[in-house]
């Protein structure tokens, strides 16, 4: 029976070899092979995502404008944008007649997407020109934290004859800049104070040459003259202060190494009177809640100013690209 046993053993060996070879044929388990971590973080959003966000902002704004209810905007609005729109609603509700709200188009023409893995994140959008042929808007959408949504933080109107600097396409993304970023003519943190000084002192400011003329400064000057006249008529005092929110500066680099810097700015205008009653305009009265003040009235303007800061060693002038300046609060007695 040795032969039989040998045969059995041989058969077993053949089976074993067969099984082994079959198992060797089995496909090895695939292992994850992700793309390498890029040296530069990818853009935070795709163009489609930006468009989706803008659409949602637009619909939210539409809903808020319809209801004139600022709470409707909370989901997609924040910062100066929310404050300005809220003031508009207040005025509109008080006046009980339609007052044109500031047009905020949400269809993008140019999108500047930051490349970062950190928060907060800011997306810059140049909108299409509104139908009423107003100037296009520069929108700034920010995401403060990973679980936050992108919210419209500010909009500003492009000033006439301003050229938006070239930026990288969204697929590439643009590098966000810190407020103390180097390599610029001035840092983003400084530009607000400098411009405020120019607004305050006019051509006497040491930075006047840095900015040149712009429509915002011109308009602010016109308004100030009016108030000064009123204050003069009322026998009171007139003061106006410009306070850039330096800590909230948002900046992104441009293709030429410069930066677009958006600085929130609050303007406070105070009028005093010598016991004479001061009658306010309808809108101001709506914000104040009464039509006249007898001692003083303080007007608060909210808005943002967008600067284009050239890179160091480039042109020696900062451009005011866009701005918004809206009276958002009135106090007085």
């Amino acid at each position: 029976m040795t032969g039989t046993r040998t045969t059995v053993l041989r058969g077993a060996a053949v089976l074993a070899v067969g099984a082994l070879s079959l198992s060797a044929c089995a496909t090895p388990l695939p292992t994850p092979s992700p793309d390498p971590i890029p040296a530069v973080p990818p853009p935070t959003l795709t163009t489609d995502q930006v468009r989706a966000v803008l659409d949602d902002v637009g619909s939210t704004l539409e809903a808020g404008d319809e209801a004139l209810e600022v709470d409707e905007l909370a989901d997609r609005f924040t910062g100066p944008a929310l404050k300005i729109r809220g003031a508009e609603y207040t005025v509109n509700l008080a006046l009980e007649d339609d007052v044109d709200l500031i047009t905020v188009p949400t269809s993008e023409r140019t999108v500047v997407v930051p490349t970062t893995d950190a928060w907060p994140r800011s997306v810059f959008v140049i909108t299409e020109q509104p139908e009423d042929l107003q100037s296009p808007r520069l929108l700034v959408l920010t995401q403060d934290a990973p679980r936050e949504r992108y919210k419209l933080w500010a909009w500003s109107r492009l000033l006439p004859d301003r050229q938006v600097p070239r930026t990288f396409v969204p697929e590439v993304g643009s590098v966000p800049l810190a407020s103390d970023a180097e390599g610029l003519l001035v840092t983003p943190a400084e530009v607000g104070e400098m411009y405020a000084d120019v607004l305050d002192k006019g051509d006497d400011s040491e930075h006047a040459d840095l900015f040149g003329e712009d429509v915002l400064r011109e308009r602010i000057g016109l308004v100030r003259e009016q108030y000064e006249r009123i204050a003069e008529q009322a026998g009171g005092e007139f003061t106006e202060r410009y306070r850039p929110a330096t800590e909230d500066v948002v900046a992104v680099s441009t293709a030429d190494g410069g930066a677009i810097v958006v600085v929130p700015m609050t303007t406070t205008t105070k009028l005093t009177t010598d016991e004479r009653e001061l009658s306010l305009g309808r809108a101001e009265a709506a914000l104040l809640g009464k039509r006249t003040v007898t001692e003083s009235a303080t007007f608060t303007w909210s808005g943002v100013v967008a600067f284009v800061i050239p890179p160091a060693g480039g042109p020696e002038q900062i451009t005011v690209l866009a701005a918004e300046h809206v009276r958002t609060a009135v106090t007085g007695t």
Partner: protein
Amino acid sequence: MRLRLTGAVLVLLGLVAAGTAVASATLWRPADHVRAEALASGATATLVTQPGVLELVADTVTVRATAPQGTRVVVAVGREADVRAWVGSDPHTLVTGLADIATLDTRPGDAVEAPVASPTPPPQPTSTPGGPVEPDDAAEDTAVEDAPGQEADPAGSDMWIVQAEGLGATEISWTHRPGRWSLLVATTGTDAGQPTLELTWPREVVTPWFRPGLWIGCALVLAGAAVIVLGWRRSRADAAEWVDVETDAGVEAEEVVPVAAPEVPAAPLTRRQLRELEAARGSGRAARPVVPTVRRSGPPPTVAEPERPGAPEPVEAAPVAGPAGAAPAPAPAHASAPAAAPYVPTPPAPVEDAPYVPAFVPTRRGGVVPHIPSGPAAPARQVPTAQSVPASRPAPTAQPASAPQPAPSPQPPQPTQPVQPSQPAPSVARWTPTGPTAPAAAPAATPVWPTMTPATPVSSGPPPAALAPEPDLPAEQSPDRGGSAMRRLLRRKDSATEAAPVGPPEEVTPEPEPPTAPPVEPGVARAETAHTGTASADAWRARWGFVETPSAQPDVDQDGGER
């Protein structure tokens, strides 16, 4: 038998191979997708995949997430950094890859703090204090947002490329794009359960074994069928060619056991071989080589009665002048001598027990063809004749046709009379029993030519040689001749001791005239005396003329080889 068995095995193997091949492409066809699951471990309500997991198997993946009890479940795909930042310090389960082909590998995820660009003062809602936000603040904010026991809702985040939500289950499809992407699965609600993630990738199914397996299987089946047919034909051919020899049942029933081992399998000739054989006979040349076989599977040989003219009578101890007889006497040393002896007229007497003793003619290839004498003196086709090769070979080489003539002349005349083997003539007897299938394996029934080795061509036209075992040759035969075949033969003989023919020779009588003479069965008369062991075997061999002539052999072989 062995052929057919082999054929059957081949067919079986072929069927198995073909079946396996087909099954591999159908029954066992690998799924056209890979589906792997993962369950959020512990009490985490969030699953996160590492980059690369989504495109683990294919670029397109279907993500299906389920949650127990219809809990709201959200799935989303976003950048790795975004997903990790979103999850933050929440407990979550990280999917790292495949544990096996149906299970995703998971491990508890590490808490990740949302990175904050510290130098940049983020724009803050006016309601919040200004200033740079510290990472801790961010974490706190995140934590505060989550009410205790309520998982945050990833749905609605602007960061996701693809997202979906559903109650109990939801599904998305994701196609890989450049970058590092992670999947986020989260259940929401106060009693959020553990979500289950199921990733399904399409997979191109290949059946590499189908075609080769099918071909091999078919080839095996065909080969097996061919072998079976071959075996069948041989058996048929044998049945047709060889006349059964029947022992005289009336006489010594017990001893009627055929000399040859009863269970010797036989490899029959194919028809083609038979045809060729005939042709060869006609031309005096040997046909194709054939494995000498004697079909022994059937009942003991029976004598075809009709052919036997007279009442068969066992020829007892009647010395049959076999070819051997011729060899020894006429021309022991001469090649042609055997020719004279080949014809051993068979007495009509019945030959019992006689195993088939076909005449085998070694051919050039070394095969052995049952020989049918072609010469004038050739016996009837059906007469199995054993030829004394050694004797006949030399002659055939020279003149195949003529060779038979000289010798046969004397012998053939006495068809009815057994030829008396004059002497054991060891020199002539070169017969050795042969196995049915191979020359080497020698069942007792078949005589094997010593020259059957491949190296020795054999003349085709030797005169029919009657094989007449020598009455008393046993002692001289050397069992070693046949090698293992011989040993087997001996064993068989032992087992069939009683059956072993004893000294008395039987006459195998080829018919002198092929055309006219009816086939005569070689018969072997039973020997009364029982011999044991080698003695009986030797006796058997002697009886069949298997007497070797050591001296004569070499020459014969060489001659044949040259030819």
